[in-house]
């Protein structure tokens, strides 16, 4: 058993159902990696193996979610499976763009419906621009970064860039989401539908939290792992 697993009470021999019960944000990790509910008494190792996922990599991602400020050790990084990390990041993009953002959009549309037409237009445009920027950001990772990582994995040379060029700066999309949060929390017209405003805020916080973890996995797990492969460590 590796050292980080000793430090944190999460191990491959734990029952999967019990692990997920310790922190409900882990539910998202499990679904995105294609683990199927109805676990019975199966252990983390058993469920992961059945789904073709490396259990240690699954637990590594779980720790990022469950322990704030968690930093993986060098050993944990060398033991992790890059393809599983990629799968996780890709599925997260799908979750954001196909679940969270559409739900947020629907709630926002309902929220501003009682407002003056001018106000509706202003708020909707801000959201639409944010959505587009976020989509562009994901498209860049899907189109440039992930294929490059796969190329490195398959030892294909002559790749167009190195992981060091990978855009680490997520700040603009982050700032816009925070602005949206403050606009809804502090400045929307009182006529707005309050139930829907609650939903909008709920999705904003959900996305903000998850994107924070997502960014950490990209910058502090994916990038160093690929960096080492580039240097043939």
């Amino acid at each position, binding site marked *: 058993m590796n050292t980080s697993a000793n430090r944190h009470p999460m191990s491959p021999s734990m029952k999967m159902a019990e692990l997920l019960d310790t922190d409900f944000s882990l539910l998202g990790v499990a679904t995105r990696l294609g683990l199927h509910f109805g676990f019975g008494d199966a252990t983390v190792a058993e469920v992961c193996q059945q789904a073709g996922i490396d259990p240690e990599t699954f637990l590594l991602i779980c720790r990022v979610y469950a322990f704030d400020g968690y930093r993986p050790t060098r050993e944990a990084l060398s033991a992790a499976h890059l393809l599983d990390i990629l799968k996780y990041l890709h599925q997260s993009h799908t979750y954001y763009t196909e679940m969270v953002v559409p739900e947020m959009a629907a709630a926002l549309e309902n929220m501003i419906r009682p407002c003056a037409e001018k106000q509706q237009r202003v708020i909707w445009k*801000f959201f639409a621009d944010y959505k587009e920027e976020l989509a562009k950001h994901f498209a860049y990772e899907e189109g440039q970064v992930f294929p490059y990582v796969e190329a490195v994995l398959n030892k294909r040379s002559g790749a167009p860039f190195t992981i060091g060029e990978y855009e680490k700066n997520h700040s603009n999309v982050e700032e816009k989401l925070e602005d949206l949060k403050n*606009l809804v929390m502090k400045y929307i017209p009182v006529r707005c539908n309050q139930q829907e405003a609650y939903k909008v805020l709920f999705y904003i916080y959900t996305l903000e939290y998850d994107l924070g973890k997502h960014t950490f996995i990209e910058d502090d797990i994916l990038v160093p792992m690929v960096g080492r492969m580039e240097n043939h460590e």
Partner: protein
Amino acid sequence: MSKRILIVVPSAIAAKGLEQVFNDLGEFEVCAILRDISGQELRSMAPDVVLVDPCIYDYASRSGVKARIAEYSDAAVIAFAASPMDEDQQRQFDGVIGLMDTPPSIIKKVRAALEDRTEAPKAEGEELSQREKEILICVAKGMLNKEIADLYNISIYTVITHRKNITRKTGIKTVAGLTVYALLNNLIDMNSVE
């Protein structure tokens, strides 16, 4: 602009002495000398500093002097302790002046209390100043810092400071977000951004 000081001290001699200290400088203006004070008076005089002898309140309520005054005024409250005060009583004030304080040390204490007051974090809920609103409008219209600086004849550095304060007060960081803020608050018209 000189800072308005309200002196609430029953001893006429002490009050006279204090007034002298402040009047000599021009930095302060003693707006009144009273022996006692009501909430109404406090509100209408709107002083920047209240210099109060806690002995105007009976002993039991002396630890709540600042709170009483704060109900009617956001002035810095400095105790003029003609008689010794225990530590609990002292702690509530923005400063304590004693009979043994020299004029320079009195001035120093008043200045310090005023400084703390301006730095006090009312932060989040603060209203934008008129100048900040003007600059926000420019930002929302898409003007560059240089253009804003030229328009108002101020340095770029000053524009940046204003923008920092606008973001701190509103919680909005991006230009797009500030534009929405300005429109929702009717600071600009839809037509001026499209």
